[in-house]
């Protein structure tokens, strides 16, 4: 009950007019930048940080946090509507979310994402309130070998979640890893695979890859089709809202996604991304008819959207308890706290409990606000899809170009995007999916550094991965998943062999 007392104090501090207004402002800004690719939460918060110097620390934190989870939320909108993921964690939503939109079910897809996010956001926040200290103790048990095994598991999932040929999925993951290795090597400081181009020293950027392979390829694919065969639009309210059947299918997925996201979110580095992929894999595994996935299965939206939102909330845990930022946005928020004279970490809960609990309370308020802001927008978003495609596609292309240019201010990155768009189009023609490639690209470098670090520690002895219980368990799960994925096709070939 102590927690309830804390939450009550928190709510009373967070529910002042000023704080609520800035929470609303943060959520609005976050939604907006989430919808626009390229203008992610990082530059936005960086730009706003100096303005918050003069503000009350609590108000500042509430606004910055609102931008962060608002962006997670807005990112799914463009994924669903035009197959253009603005954030890494909404890449997976493209698969089934955009299929739903193509079938004229953009409304239910957006509503599912919104409601799933609300549920996950609230549960994730409760998680912070109730379990922050024990969870951070758990996260502290993760050493380099454990991270390596976690990344292996993540990449195995990337193969399992692909629908189509396993070999093609493996190839995509491997290409993704190779792309992820481009750039300066951490250990030796030497440039790898940069072809002497200085724009590649820091590696390939994320946005040129996803906007090229998803956004632009989608435009090409649509233009190939004869007009009239494109999206059918219905803006009747009945069709905007998920049906009872949709709810029945979506809610267990949202609950599972939330659980996965809450746990993976506390691990630094790609927690939200990993959570959304893991949730999708799990839903596909558990589904009675996995073939529906990739063709507009509502679980494929509900699960990952809940997972990434839950992870976005729980990624505050390492910052608030260990003083370790789990991603770049958290690093910025940490900078903000330090400037306001606070030392993020376990001491914050005891030294500044009012601030800690008010921040937690504001997350509840913010999540409710996000749904209130977004549900009335459903009709507008969906109607947007009804615009003639000759107006839509130049807009999408422009947003892609502006988005890529805005993050780096280097024309080179636009060239990269065009190259990846061409590459993505070739893959499309060969029936290869880009999603495993993106997962390989994100997780591959993490896997590499942890592999090399572990082997440096063990002086090259690979048993370090089996001696540690966490690492061994994760590897065992990965091995199990490979068996599950390979056995059916193995059995099938055997059956076919027997037939002859």
């Amino acid at each position, binding site marked *: 009950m102590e927690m309830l007392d804390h939450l009550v104090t928190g709510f009373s501090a967070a529910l002042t007019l000023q704080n609520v207004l800035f929470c609303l402002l943060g959520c609005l800004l976050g939604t907006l930048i989430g919808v626009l690719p390229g203008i992610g939460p990082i530059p936005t918060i960086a730009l706003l*940080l*100096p303005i918050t110097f003069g503000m009350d620390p609590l108000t500042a934190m509430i606004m910055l946090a609102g931008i962060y989870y608002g962006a997670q939320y807005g990112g799914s909108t463009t994924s669903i509507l035009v197959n253009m993921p603005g954030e890494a964690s909404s890449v997976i939503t493209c698969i089934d979310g955009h299929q739903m939109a193509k079938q004229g079910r953009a409304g239910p897809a957006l509503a599912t994402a919104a409601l799933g996010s609300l549920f996950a956001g609230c549960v994730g926040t409760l998680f912070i309130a109730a379990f922050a200290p024990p969870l951070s103790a758990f996260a502290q048990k993760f050493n380099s070998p454990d991270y390596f095994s976690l990344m292996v598991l993540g990449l195995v999932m990337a193969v399992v979640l692909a629908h189509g040929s396993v070999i093609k999925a493996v190839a995509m993951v491997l290409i993704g890893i190779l792309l992820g290795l481009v750039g300066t090597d951490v250990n030796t400081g030497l440039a790898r695979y940069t072809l002497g181009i200085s724009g590649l020293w820091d590696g390939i950027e994320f946005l040129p890859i996803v906007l090229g392979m998803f956004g632009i390829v989608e435009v090409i694919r649509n233009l190939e089709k004869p007009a009239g065969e494109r999206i059918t639009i219905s803006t009747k309210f009945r069709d905007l809202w998920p049906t009872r059947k949709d709810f029945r299918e979506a809610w267990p997925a949202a609950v599972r996604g939330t659980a996965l996201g809450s746990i993976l979110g506390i691990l630094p580095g790609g927690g939200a991304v990993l959570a959304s992929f893991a949730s999708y894999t799990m839903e596909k595994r558990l589904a009675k008819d996995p073939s529906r996935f990739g063709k507009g299965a509502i679980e494929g939206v509900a699960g990952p959207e809940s997972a990434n939102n839950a992870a976005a909330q729980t990624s505050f845990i390492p910052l608030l308890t260990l003083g370790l930022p789990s991603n770049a946005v958290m690093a910025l928020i940490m900078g903000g706290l330090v400037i306001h004279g606070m030392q993020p970490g376990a001491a914050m809960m005891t030294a500044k409990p009012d601030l800690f609990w008010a921040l937690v309370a504001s997350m509840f308020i913010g999540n409710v606000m996000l749904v209130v802001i977004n549900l009335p927008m459903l009709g507008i978003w969906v109607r947007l899809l009804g615009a003639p495609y000759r107006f839509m596609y130049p807009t999408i292309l422009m947003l892609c170009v502006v988005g890529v240019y805005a993050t780096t201010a280097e024309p080179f990155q636009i060239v990269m995007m065009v190259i990846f768009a061409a590459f993505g189009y070739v893959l499309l023609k060969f029936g290869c999916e880009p999603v495993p490639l993106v997962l390989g690209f994100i997780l591959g470098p993490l896997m590499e550094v942890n592999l090399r*670090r572990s082997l440096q520690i063990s002086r090259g002895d690979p048993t370090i991965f089996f001696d540690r219980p966490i690492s061994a368990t994760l590897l065992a799960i990965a091995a199990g998943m490979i068996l599950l994925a390979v056995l059916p096709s193995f059995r099938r070939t055997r059956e076919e062999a027997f037939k002859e």
Partner: protein
Amino acid sequence: MTKTPQTITRRTAIALAGSTLAMPWVARAQGAYPNRTITFVCAFSPGSGADTLVRYFADRVQKVAGQTIIVENRPGAAGNVSAEFVARARPDGYTIYPHAASSTAANMHLFRRPPIDVAKDLQMAAKINRQAFMIVVPASSPINSIKDLTDHLRPLGDKASYASAATSGKVMAETYKVLANLKTEEVNYRDAGESLNDMLSGQVAFGAHDPVFCLSQASQGRLKILATAAGERLKAIPQVPTMTEQGYPMDQLAWWGVFVPSQTPRPIVDTINGWFKQVLETDETREFLGRFGGDVAIGTPDEAQAMLLRTIDQWKEFVLVAKLPQQ
């Protein structure tokens, strides 16, 4: 960042207007520096700790200078992208580059072909701070001094490991190893935070890390700071001993300063120096920098330039000691 093209066009437009009209009032207006928006170039991506530092000064100097200051992030190639951009910028005092001067100096030796000659293409307008890297062990460890650490590590030979992330930490640890005759092996991390779990579980014996990380973890009782690489104790952290006083002499200061293009006229450089001096003399700034484990450093442009030249020389040796590869 989205503002880049805008500012450039505006700047070009003003330059054009100035050169074509060349009316007396324009000359007078140009004389009254500063009369338009100033740009602070930041070599770190938005969100890094260093970005916070640049934005703090942008905000405070803006009030003193009476002109809007915008921060332009130009990350990449270990700061070379920014350094080159500033070196090629118009030397009119409207492009200012507050950055880690020690790492700008180090780049002269870390790159086989440095894009600019830091000593000639840039000039220092002011100093900002000085800080030092630190050697840390878990708070629960029985090791309480560098001597304890050496006694613990020597019998282990190359079986023990240490964690490093930034180049300065690597240089500090390698210098220590040479002085103490140790064979401890290095494990690389992308940032200090990543190495925390491996340090706490004892997978690596110690870490050589930046002061922000060390102080924050020490204040939370997870890590213990054994020594700093500074020549003498820093005012912000008088309780932390140096390597030198524990018998391992070294003087490796990481310091920040303010760069401008080398052709910037002296009166403008002096004006910029004055702004920073005014901001640095406030208690607020002293506390702000102190929280990152650094001391305020105030100096004339000439003093700062002399320190830059010394640091460039120092790094020649550091690169050899730490066997750092050149790009």
